[in-house]
């Protein structure tokens, strides 16, 4: 069973968009690698821009999708069991996108490993890197354990899927050599794997929370930025991960699941959609707390970034994407059409998409205020401006990362047993 992507007219325009994005993205990567940061629009005053926001967004998707997989593997949530592997794979691909993004953001990409060889334990960023590295390895191992049973049965298939499965299982003869069809699929006892998944997931849950909470803390500990420097930040990030990751997973399951329209499918989509909605509600309460309290106190260093968000140069990022597409419309859709698979999928997709605006509005407004009155006009230079809109190169690099990760995801859905359930059913 494969995810249902191709046999539809919509696949052709989507494919063309993908090719265009990937090609343009390659140009962006070329520019980034040859000219460094010269073509980027962030400045010394606003040193973090689109890429850092994108990184935070991608790690949030990853942590969110992973935590949902833990509901299945650790807490034994039966109704969602079929999507466990898909959730893990989504988490893995989002993490790949995140790491690629933040790697390209470094001034010296070749020195990334310094965080391991000479890391500073006093830095939240070092902890974040160590934690996501551990999380990355755990994710790979857990994903492997989750699919290897299905790989065994898939390895007996004819065609590319069989060869890939054989290769991953280390059966190089069957992967590259002639492939006589096996009469009987290998039997595989999954009891050990299930136990293993539970253990790995149990390690993964605190790890994912620590790691994504750590991303929030990375911003929260910066005392120089009143907007970031709030104890709410780690919590905001953890809940935000569940909102965005849940939204993405709901969208994927709603539109790409092989057996569409069955009662089982509807149940999964509705469950995931409701979870996303609940998390979104919690998130909105936290955002309300943040905005109402800060604006009431109205202390300039903390309130000014919020005024920038609400009415600065780019208010549509907040009102259109974050509030409109990311919250109001999805809530309305799920209220009116809460049982419809495509509507819930669409609403959840909007939540996931709109969350990118939320991430932008975490990173950039925190940097908009000059640290000292008059510093913005003390020395006039493009690189000292307190204004920021991403450059073409920045968007192209993001297009590459987005298309690269979706491309890998697509390949995974074609070649890996992400939704195979034969063995489980037979047990």
């Amino acid at each position, binding site marked *: 069973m494969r995810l249902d992507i191709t046999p539809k007219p919509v696949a052709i325009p989507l494919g063309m968009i993908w090719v265009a994005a990937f090609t343009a993205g390659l140009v962006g990567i070329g520019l980034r690698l040859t000219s460094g940061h010269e073509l980027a629009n962030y400045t010394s005053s606003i040193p973090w821009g689109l890429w850092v926001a994108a990184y935070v967004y991608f790690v949030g998707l990853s942590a969110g999708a992973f935590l949902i997989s833990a509901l299945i593997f650790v807490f034994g949530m039966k109704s969602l069991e079929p999507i466990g592997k898909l959730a893990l794979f989504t988490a893995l691909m989002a993490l790949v996108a995140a790491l690629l993004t933040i790697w390209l953001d*470094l001034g010296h990409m070749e020195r990334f490993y310094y965080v391991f060889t000479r890391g500073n334990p006093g*830095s939240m960023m070092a902890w974040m890197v160590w934690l996501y590295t551990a999380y990355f390895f755990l994710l790979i191992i857990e994903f492997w354990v989750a699919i290897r049973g299905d790989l065994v049965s898939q390895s007996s298939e004819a065609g590319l899927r069989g060869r890939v499965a054989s290769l991953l299982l280390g059966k190089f003869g069957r992967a590259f050599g002639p492939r006589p069809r096996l009469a009987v699929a290998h039997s595989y006892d999954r009891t050990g794997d299930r136990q293993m998944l539970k253990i790995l997931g149990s390690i993964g849950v605190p790890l994912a929370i620590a790691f994504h909470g750590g991303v929030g803390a990375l911003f929260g500990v*910066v005392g*120089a930025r009143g907007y970031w420097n709030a104890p709410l930040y780690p919590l905001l990030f953890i809940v935000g991960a569940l909102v965005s990751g849940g939204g993405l997973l709901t969208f994927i399951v709603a539109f790409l699941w092989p057996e569409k329209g069955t009662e089982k499918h509807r149940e999964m989509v509705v469950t995931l959609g409701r979870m996303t909605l609940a998390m979104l509600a919690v998130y909105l309460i936290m955002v309300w707390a943040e905005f109402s309290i800060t604006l009431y106190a109205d202390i300039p260093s903390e309130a000014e970034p919020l005024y920038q968000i609400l009415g600065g140069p780019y208010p549509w990022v907040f009102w259109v994407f974050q509030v409109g597409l990311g919250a109001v419309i999805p809530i309305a859709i799920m209220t009116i059409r809460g049982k419809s698979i495509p509507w819930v999928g669409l609403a959840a997709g909007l939540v996931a998409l709109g969350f990118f605006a939320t991430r932008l509005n975490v990173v950039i407004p925190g*940097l908009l205020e000059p640290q000292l009155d008059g510093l913005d006009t*003390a020395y006039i230079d493009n*690189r*000292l401006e307190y204004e920021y809109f991403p450059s073409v190169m920045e968007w192209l690099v993001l297009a590459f990362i987005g298309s690269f990760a979706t491309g890998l995801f697509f390949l995974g859905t074609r070649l890996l047993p992400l939704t195979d359930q034969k063995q489980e059913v037979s047990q």
Partner: protein
Amino acid sequence: MAGSSRRGFLRQVAKVVPSVAAAAALGHMGLAGAKRSKPGSEFEGDPAVWRERFLEAARAAKEAGPAVDTLQAPVSPSKDVPMVMNITEDGFIPLAEVRTPRSSPSKVADIIRMQEELQKAMEKPMNQRKWIMVIDLQKCIGCSACTISCKAENNLPPGVVYRPVIEEEIGEFPNVTRRWLPRPCMHCDDPPCTDVCPVGATWKREDGIVVVDYDACIGCRYCLTACPYGARYFDFGDKYTDDTPAVQAYEKSPSPEYGKEWTRDGQGSPVGNARKCQFCIHRLDVGMLPACVTTCIGEATFFGDKNDPDSLVNELIASPRVMRLKEEQGTNPKVYYLT
């Protein structure tokens, strides 16, 4: 440590980099013309001879135009007096010749005193001196000579400005006045920028100077976000000659920061690094005051060892006018302002 070689290196740098600092200062004295000739071309031979000629030109210019108070100095340089600028063959004025303010001919100029205190402090082990800077805002006239001299001294690229001068207009027209606030790195005693560095590439030295190891910095820019004063900069690799036919010599010449030669080439350090004011460590190491101190025409910037109880800076920070920026951040800046 390796003082002589650094001095030699400084001489080399001074030969290559046209002294924008001196030019700026001279420009303010109405002497820009005296500086236009190429170093060495007009004043060859014995430094004592060309020094005479230079001062003659200066006196002539003074009579012709604006006041040149600082050049009312006796023209008899003594080789025994330490000079702020040892690079005389390139047109710097030996401090001995500008040491005597008209008002108090017997009093040693502040700058000489600071220079002597600096050299005394440099004889101590590093952990026994603690550099501080004092900036008298009533003396600052907003000329930006410090900004420019810092740019020239450290050979800084576009967008990297270690010491901008913040300009503030107070009141409403026509009842307005202006105030200027030079903003070097505060060299905080509790620097928030060093804590956040994921690779420990930036730290506070034993003498209190906050430094960056260009060879270790990965360019994540976390420290830029963490500085409450906006005193850190990212080197994007921009050049003054971008979009022009040729890269000019002054862009190929190295920066002397941290006593090393840093040539900006391609994407190698210091391109892609966080950069900041380091109190001109390369000058301190050879017994010279930071460039912003020696070029301040209002003598508004002071520098010295806080651990020396007799130092000028210690006298100054005892003033009731003293303040520091953003005390509430708990950073304990080592740059003091007199308001």
